[in-house]
């Protein structure tokens, strides 16, 4: 991306403040790069496929040949897989959480790669800052935990939520109403919005800080000494860059952990 969309309206010689005319521009790539039949391939679609192939490639090349002494790369991937399986799936859901480990692992790796696109040079676009992708993943989790709840507990899964036995009779309708909305409506929405908003905020901060810093510093011929103002912005942006690295990993972990917790409340609704 040429630096940058946000600078299209910016003239540093006259105005000291540069801002994008519309922030949505930073997240939209409407023009299709190429099309196969009725399917348009925009930048987001290509990055989605790229994330998928990266995850498949990582797992394939790490575990292609079983070794007694794994390579360094294999050991690193193994610790990642064991972390999701033992700490997240088994640690949260219990011994039968091993069944959900493949789902949690693939989701964790996909979100991790998609988030890390934010801080990958020359890509610099977090895939999960388009609402469609976190929302789809959250709906997937929703379908799984509702299905598991009905499969494990039958209709008493629903009645246990809207008519909780552990609450005094006079309050049951109120608690049941709140529980019903928070379980079936707010859970997927907050799960998606949490991931989405974190990545949007990070992308915006990076773009604005690094972009404005770059614009000011490169306009040194036009505005002279005043272009020094770009330097602190650029340094601050690089600091945020490191912070976003942590956020990307942490948000992938939190999404996976919360999915496991939601599945756990469906498997053992009494807790």
């Amino acid at each position: 991306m040429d630096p940058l969309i946000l600078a299209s309206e910016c003239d540093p010689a006259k105005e000291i403040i540069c801002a994008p005319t519309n922030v949505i521009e930073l997240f939209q790539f409407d023009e299709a790069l190429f099309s196969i039949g009725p399917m348009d391939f925009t930048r987001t679609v290509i990055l989605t496929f790229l994330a998928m192939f990266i995850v498949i490639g990582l797992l394939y090349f790490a575990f292609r040949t079983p070794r007694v002494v794994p390579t360094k790369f294999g050991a690193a991937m193994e610790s990642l897989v064991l972390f999701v399986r033992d700490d997240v799936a088994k640690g949260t859901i219990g011994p039968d959480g091993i069944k959900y480990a493949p789902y949690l692992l693939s989701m964790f790796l996909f979100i991790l790669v998609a988030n890390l696109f934010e801080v990958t040079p020359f890509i610099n676009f977090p895939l999960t800052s388009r609402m469609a992708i976190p929302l789809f993943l959250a709906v997937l989790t929703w379908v799984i935990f509702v299905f598991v709840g009905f499969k494990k507990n039958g209709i008493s899964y629903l009645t246990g939520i809207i008519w909780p036995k552990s609450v005094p009779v006079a309050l049951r309708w109120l608690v049941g109403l709140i529980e019903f909305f928070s379980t079936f409506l707010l859970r997927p929405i907050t799960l998606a919005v949490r991931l989405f908003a974190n990545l949007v905020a990070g992308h915006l901060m990076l773009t604005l800080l690094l972009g404005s810093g770059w614009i000011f510093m490169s306009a040194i011929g036009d505005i002279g000494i005043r272009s020094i103002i770009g330097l602190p912005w650029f340094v601050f942006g690089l600091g945020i860059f490191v912070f976003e690295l942590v956020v990307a990993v942490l948000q992938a972990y939190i999404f996976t952990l919360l999915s496991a917790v939601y599945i756990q409340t469906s498997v053992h609704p009494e807790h």
Partner: protein
Amino acid sequence: MEEIKGAIALIGYGLAAIGPGIGIGIVVGNAIQAMARQPEAAGLARTTMFLGIAFTEALALIGFVLFFIA
């Protein structure tokens, strides 16, 4: 009313950030206390801390999203 729309959204986001700010402070503070008192349970405390942070910060993030929608 139209010309101060952005300002109102900003104030709304600021208000939405107060509660989660206090909440995350309480969550992390108590988690650190738990880890310091019982270092062998640090892993459990850390997992639960991240869960608590995630639930608390959702409110601030909803405010952040509403700032753009408004």
